[in-house]
């Protein structure tokens, strides 16, 4: 058996693994929204100071 055939087959199999990964990604909804992640990634991580205790505003129902 020609070694090139083996090479081609294994490369197609490797590519098929990526195809399956893509199908999984599409199926799990990773391509449902392709605009917001571009906005989201620009946010810097802010450090929430732990000293500040959030004031509980009594504003439910207003």
């Amino acid at each position, binding site marked *: 058996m020609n070694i090139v055939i083996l090479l081609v087959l294994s490369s197609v199999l490797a590519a098929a693994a990526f195809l399956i990964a*893509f*199908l999984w990604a*599409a199926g799990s909804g990773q391509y449902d929204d392709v605009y*917001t992640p571009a906005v989201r990634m620009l*946010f810097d991580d802010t450090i*929430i100071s732990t000293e500040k205790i959030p004031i509980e*505003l009594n504003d439910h129902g207003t």
Partner: protein
Amino acid sequence: MRSIHQTPESITAHACVHCGEPIATGAVLANNLAFCCAGCKTVYEILAAHDLCEYYARETTAGVSMKRRNVREDEFTILDDPAVARKILTFASSHLNRVIWPVPSVHCASCVWLLERFERLEPGVLSSTVDIMRKTVMIDFDPRTTSLRRIAERLANIGYAPLLRLSEEEPGTKTSSVRGLYARIGIAGFAAGNTMMMYIAEYFAGPHGIEHSLVTTFRALSIALSIPVLLYSASPWFIAARAALRGRRINLDVPVALGIVVLFARSVFDIVSSTGTGYLDSFNGLVFFLLIGRLFQQRAFDALSFDRTYRSFFPLSVRILKNGNSTVIPIEKINIGDALSVRNGEVVPCDSALESEIGYVDYSFVTGESAPVECTRGEMVYAGGKAMGRAITLIASKKVSHSELAAMWEASSLLKDKENGKRRSRYLQWSDLFGTWFTLAAVGVALLGAAVWVPDWTKSFSIFTAVLIVACPCALTLAAPITLGTAMGLLGRFGIYLKNMGVLLDLERVDSIIFDKTGTLTMPDYRFSFTGRPLTQDEQIAISSVASQSSHPISRAIAGSWSDRENEFEEVKETVGGGIVGRSMGHTVAIGSIEFIREQCWNEMELGRGREIAAAVAIDGEYAGAYMMQPMVRPGIAALIAALRKTKSVALLSGDTDRDRATFEPLFGTAMRFNARPEAKIGAMEQEQSRGHRVLMIGDGLNDAGAMSAADVAIAVTDDTATLVPACDLILRADSLTKLPALVSYAHRVKQLIAVSLTFSILYNALGVTLAIMGMLSPLVAAVLMPLSSLTVIAISVAGARHFARSIAKEGRAT
């Protein structure tokens, strides 16, 4: 003449810290920061308390103005009802609930930032994810800690009130079709790449070819890779073509499906009979590009949902009074005879009779009349009216679904559907005609080519199939969807939302534009200007203090402009239907109708002409002046009308009285009509059309709906995309109204762009067919020519649509 509404320079110069709108009247100050209204201040305080002020650092116009919002405090009470909640939740278990809510006010990066940190504001929220294109937020929460109602209320508190819709359709049906499309593209792309790799080996093998065992393996593998593409990826075209043939029509899907089948069959035949390499690389590439075109189409569709019914204009629930208790029920459950309590700013859900002594109802959405109507006990109040000033009690006389409003809405959307059907069928006819012509021509040329070689049957067969393969109108079908789809996506960024892609082409043909006034050219709320003798500051405070004691909407608007002043008053007496008299700051102030004030004062009243007087004022028994209703014309309107008049005929068609005639005279000249009832608007529209014009109607209210469905193109102008008009083809955010001339010329450019891409694809097709006839369509030529034509069309369409969209962005900066 002077306006009482002038506020100190220092504050006017500022924009509201929260919403960024210029502060016109009644600034609210807190911590040395200026807000346009108390609502905006509240949101700021909530965010400050939770350390979320970074929100304001991202975009200058981050906040959602709270001025026009009127959330009833028990608006969301109904969400505690498990039957209602079940219809809203997409997933429910004992410790995790999920809801996907449309939030129309989502518009920028700041919105995403804040809403995705929602768990800091509401304990019990596990995560929140925003989709900025669809304007939805998905919230996972723990039902043991918080509730659907608390989340909705919290969202409304910070200006992101969710649009409550009890959907009948299954959730997630739309997204699964997009996911399926991606799967199809993935498989076709995978097959295209791998077959291309194997075919290249043969193309570049040189004069001696490659080893026989390799050739066999490559070809077998190519067939194996192509079978899923034929059966799965290409199936949409087979389904479409079969549907068309069943209906005895031939549209463009037919030659596409024919091309795909012939391409695959011929390739398999060539390979199996060992007469050639086949065209499997071209086959996979073709399906891949066709699917890319589909993706553009799909993208454009799921940007903003247009399916609104009259229900989306109403609240979900209403407060009813029963045996002295008030309970909240869903509006569907209103029975005839129920006593409804409707407070200031709330919408009357069904036609009913007024039970209170007096009430003020604003029908601007339904009729276009901007001044509130005064109703007395027993009078009919119609659904869609907004209670103003004081709370009113009503006795329901019709069910919600039987109200005039519902009937009007249904009628106009039905009309629009019919109209759309007509238009779509015209487009279909054109497309069918083209498809038929194209298919017949392709088959004809193929037969002709085959006939030339007739004694040589193999050659004849090969020419026949080659022509069918290369004639497959892949690039042709890509041209329009990709251009229009790209354009639609770009326009969404400027606050211009299209219902479907064809709207741009319709817009391009418009030559007559008709504007509605209230809510379209003017802001939905009204303002008053004072005309009369100069007032001292004490007198101004006295007037607003006395006015603040009345529940009449006009008085409230007068009082509202001085909200940060101390109100001092004594002995206030109100005469229903007349006016109010009171003492404040040492003055006796009377505010009311002309007749009411005439009785109160001794001197002659100098009434201005031409303008409608909203309220007259007398101070210490002396006539001082009057408040005029002043339209708040949206900024940039004069320039907009002037720009449009250059090329099109422009007219004003208003359901309101002609009190603003003088304001609009310089803009429209004589092309103005007032007091037009909805039926009259439809009539005017048809008259214009009978003169051979293609009419664009721009409106905002239900009163325009009839005219909008009769028009060739209808644009709805809205301050928030939540309240919608039926029968519109295009939604324009109010601040984008000035971009209308740019939009029209963009539509023009887009049409030219499509023509250019079509020309290119026809040229490619002609070249391909010529080569095929001459017997020169080798697999290599096909493999180069077919993707090249698709790529050219995609490149022209996308680059062109993007390039021309820049002019719209520029227009926005200039105004």
